[in-house]
């Protein structure tokens, strides 16, 4: 792992109406880590990702990607939204959705061509969804839909990946398939940031973790800070998980 900082967040504060959702978050994410963001419901995990990506406007604070503003570094960043955030009855195919990953580099008006199609097919292959490329997206299972979303992000060929609960509602096979892809990304020195819910799997899947509950509780290597003390601070109750070391 190099010591470069991939994502830096300073004094980020976000509020819906009067209620602060994120309060004064400072965060440094080093390059090449596979990081989980954990915290209870309503802790602002999705909000954190969305404000880093500029989907939500923070009240205060700044975000930089490799030392420059996000707007300039957009092409380095890929996003996997929550599966439930879109209408899966939309009339389109799996391949078409993955192709959307190429729209960003194409820019306005220009249409995707053979090169983009080839990239999309490769990404589908990577997530094991190539046989389903012409399948109507409403006829895919939840796990398959999640893989399609992942493939769409892979097509972007970014350096930093933000994923909002990619393991939500998927079966064990898909979970393993996804985590293997994430680990391969880390091996290629990419930075992956994942909103995660299953505390049991944190030590197994991730090497970096951020505890979040409106405020940042702790951030650092899993082996140093993933302990009962931080879990209790984050979840409020006396939370104990068996951590395999």
């Amino acid at each position: 792992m190099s010591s470069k900082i991939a994502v830096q967040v300073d004094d980020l504060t976000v509020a819906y109406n009067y209620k602060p959702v994120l309060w004064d978050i400072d965060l440094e994410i080093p390059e090449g880590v596979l990081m989980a963001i954990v915290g209870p419901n309503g802790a602002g995990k999705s909000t954190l990702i969305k404000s880093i990506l500029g989907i939500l406007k923070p009240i205060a604070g700044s975000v930089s990607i490799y030392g420059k503003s996000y707007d300039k570094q957009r092409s380095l960043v890929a996003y996997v939204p929550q599966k439930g955030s879109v209408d899966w009855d939309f009339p389109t195919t799996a391949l078409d959705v993955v192709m959307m990953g190429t729209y960003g580099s194409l820019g306005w008006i220009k249409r995707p061509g053979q090169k983009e199609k080839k990239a999309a097919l490769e990404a589908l292959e990577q997530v094991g969804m190539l046989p389903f490329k012409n399948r109507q997206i409403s006829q895919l299972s939840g796990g398959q839909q999640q893989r399609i979303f992942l493939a769409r992000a892979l097509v972007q060929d970014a350096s930093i990946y933000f994923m909002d609960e990619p393991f939500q509602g998927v079966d064990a096979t898909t979970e393993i398939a996804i985590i293997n892809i994430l680990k391969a990304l880390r091996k290629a020195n990419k930075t992956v940031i994942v909103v995660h819910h299953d505390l049991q799997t944190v030590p197994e899947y991730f090497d970096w973790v951020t505890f979040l509950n409106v405020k940042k509780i702790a951030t650092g290597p899993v082996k140093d800070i993933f302990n009962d003390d931080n879990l209790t601070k984050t979840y409020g109750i006396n939370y104990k998980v068996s951590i395999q070391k």
Partner: protein
Amino acid sequence: MLGSFAVLRKQSLLGDAISHAALPGIAIAFLLTGAKESNTLLLGALVSGLIGTFWIRGIITKTHLKSDTALGLILSLFFGFGMLLLTFIQKQPNANQAGLDKYLFGQAATLVESDVWLMAIVTGLCLIVLLLFWKEFKILLFDKDYANTLGFNTKTIDILITSFIVLAIVLGLQTVGVVLMSAMLLAPAAAARQWTNSLSMMVFLAALFGAFSGVFGTAISAAQNNLSTGPVIVIVASVFVMFSFIFSPNRGLLFRQIRFIKNRRDLELHKTLSFMFNIAKTHENISHPHTIKILNNFQGYTKGTLKKLVDKNYVTLNGNMWSLTQEGFETVSNLYNQQLKKDE
């Protein structure tokens, strides 16, 4: 054509709200100019339609109200205001005022050549914009947040789509009228959605259905006296929708029901067959005859299913006895494997 986008955005009522919101614009334009020149009136409609639309957007983003509430609110507010102005105009001693109410229900007969040209030009413009920004429209409709992260200014695309929807509605007002316009926008799109799973095909079909309803509707109302065009067009479009709901191959009610019944029959047959299989496999010779009576214990069994099995050569009957054929035996053995393959 543009209706497809409204339907897919789950903002079907937007069209209704816009067309109603256009009414005060027409009235005000008339009050200001005192003439019934259709282009000026439509300009008024366009302006007030746009104002209505952006108010709706404002209400949705700035308050906690749901979009249907915002739509309903603006719809009735603008329509009420428009009606107020219309009744006020009717009391005025201006001979010109007669006929303004045609915008309520539409009257194709009042179209003149220049109107038709205007429509053609705007339609062409819509088509060009649609082709140019196809990719952007698609991604905005499917996943707005994601489009944002790719660097597209979603607000711009959104305003572009909405403006064109408003434009299309305002142009249709003269033909179909304020009250029925939203049907004109949505019916072809709803019908088209039934037939296809591809966005481009859906938009194309919607345009086709829309054009057909227009032509048929006008033809029917021209053939009969006293049939106003707008409602006839809308009824024709609705017939398209009904037909599509029932007869479209994938999503249609009829074929879905037929498939459902067929699947059930197949399953019944398979169950009977596998029940027989379980009995038969206890014997050395798979075609060892058994009495039909033992099948009575099994629920899926009827005389009909037995006959079908015989027809398919899976079973042979001999008096009160049945026996499984080689073919039947193999079919059952493969049944489970096939089922597994299908599930994959």
